[in-house]
């Protein structure tokens, strides 16, 4: 209950941060403008994309691909900035301004406080992703006169990905300064994208890669959020690539999203563990 109060208060505060407002606004404009980009890109797009579907690519199809790639790209970038900014800022801001003193001296457990902050971060991202997703859906919906489920799912998956990244930043924010935290979280994002690649190197241990290095890579693969699987915009943009993932929905709802939630929950538990011992 107190966690919920903290969470809603956090959303109210976060939605007033300039960085968040600006990135949301720019993202919305870019999503809408992707239409114009596609218009210019389409003619040349045919030749570059033609190979993949054996020359049957139509201009409108290429236009769709350009719009979707651009909009997903914008959403990923906005999500990256927002999650890192919120994750690194929410708790340090409250400590610096001492608002945390009046909160923690009330019957608010530190665990409830951190849980509220993380929930608030996720809800703020949810709100922003909701708005960006809505713009995206509207754009595609108006062009195709149908409800683009795959777009909704894509936005949902990116949202979960950044809830994970935000929870990593939030954990770090309990003991690291903002800048170091932002750099480290960004590093986690990049390495997270390469997670499966690290695993494949680790599995090739033998003459070329030492056994210990292999273990090290495996450990990293487990600890760092595995974003390789979250990079599913490709199949969503190129429908024929979707066929390559068997049971796509099953994969998303029974594997990706639960993984994201469990990972975030673990970050939360670690953050609570450290925050419980933190001096204000």
């Amino acid at each position, binding site marked *: 209950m107190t966690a919920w109060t903290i969470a809603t208060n956090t959303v109210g505060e976060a939605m007033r941060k300039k960085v968040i407002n600006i990135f949301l606004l720019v993202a919305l404009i870019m999503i809408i403008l992707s239409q114009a980009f596609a218009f210019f890109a389409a003619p040349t797009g045919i030749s570059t994309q033609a190979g993949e579907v054996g020359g049957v690519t139509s201009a409108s199809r290429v236009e769709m691909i350009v719009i979707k790639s651009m909009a997903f790209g914008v959403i990923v970038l906005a999500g990256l900035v927002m999650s890192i900014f919120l994750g690194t800022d929410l708790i340090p801001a409250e400590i610096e301004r001492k608002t945390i003193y009046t909160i923690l001296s009330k019957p608010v457990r530190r665990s409830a406080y951190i849980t509220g902050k993380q929930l608030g971060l996720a809800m703020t991202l949810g709100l922003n992703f909701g708005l960006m997703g809505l713009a995206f859906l509207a754009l595609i919906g108006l062009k195709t006169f149908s409800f683009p489920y795959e777009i909704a799912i894509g936005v949902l998956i990116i949202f979960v990905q950044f809830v994970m990244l935000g929870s990593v930043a939030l954990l770090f924010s309990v003991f690291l300064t903002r800048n170091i935290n932002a750099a480290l979280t960004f590093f986690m994002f990049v390495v997270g994208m390469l997670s499966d690649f690290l695993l494949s190197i680790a599995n090739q241990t033998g003459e070329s890669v030492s056994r210990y290095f292999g273990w090290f890579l495996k450990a990293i693969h487990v600890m760092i959020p595995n974003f390789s699987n979250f990079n599913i915009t490709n199949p969503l943009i190129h429908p024929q690539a979707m066929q390559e993932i068997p049971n796509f929905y099953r994969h998303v709802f029974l594997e990706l999203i639960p993984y994201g939630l469990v990972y975030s929950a673990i970050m939360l538990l670690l953050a609570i563990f450290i925050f419980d011992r933190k*001096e204000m």
Partner: protein
Amino acid sequence: MALAVQTIGLTKRYGVLGRGGGRLAVDHLDLEVEQGVIFGFLGPNGAGKTTTIKMLLGLIFPTEGRAELLGKPVGNIQVRREISYLPESPYFYDYLSGAELLNFYGKLFNINAEERGRKIRQLLQLVGLAEDKKPLREYSKGMLQRVGIAQALINDPKLLFFDEPTSGLDPIAHIEIRDVILKLKEEGKTIFTSSHQLSDVELICDRVSIIHRGKLMKIGDVDDLLKGSEVQIIVDRPLSPALEQSLRGLSQRVVEQEGRILLYQSDEELVGQIIDAVRAERARLISVTPQRQSLESIFLQTVRDDDSGAALPPEITFTSEDTPLKGAEG
């Protein structure tokens, strides 16, 4: 009835490994504060007042020793329902109005909506902000401090911690805050307040302690502390040279004034002898006044004694405040 605050060997050493250089901020502090008392927690800058208060609220953890509030260990979540805290120069969510902020804090206590609304109106009334609907970022420092006090009262606490509640306020805001505290005193709340405004403390507090470099130097009831033992006796001139000589001999210290002489003595018996001598010669006795020390002088004395390891000569130590003794007119 349980003590409101009790600390037992409470100690805080900052940054044993890190930046604090192992600095002792609070050094084996033993305090007992009874319920219903307004307790002044005094000390120069850096004495360890804020550090102590933060330990009592569970914001930082003691290096050694322990503390209890209302008979329960610090950090107990139930105890936090009955206490509250106004930090040093507080800052609140500045996009909220006073009422919205209080609403947020009220929710943290799980106070139901109806009761919350009633409380908020009542508290804003108490601190004189009932009319204000604007966001806190447009508030003056005095208004913020009043919101801070309202915030501290949302749960109708038994025990309140104020860290320099009147610092940085103009004289009017200052007096208003002081009056709010006096009102709380009437309601029988226990208030633990640090302050550098010694005249306020003298007026408001029942009991004070002075800490210096983390150590408790002095603790006692304000009335006892201020009750100096020295008595001032004023005698009108002219005096016979013989009487003047014997009066000077009986006094610890003599101050000449135009047309009269001021004698100081702290020994009760010698005070009696001075008065008898004056009466015997039928000289005119103007007044006999016990010298009430000011809290300021006690504070300076305590802190300077600790700094230098020796008492300073009385001439430069204090300016005394006179409180005439009734019926002492000769």
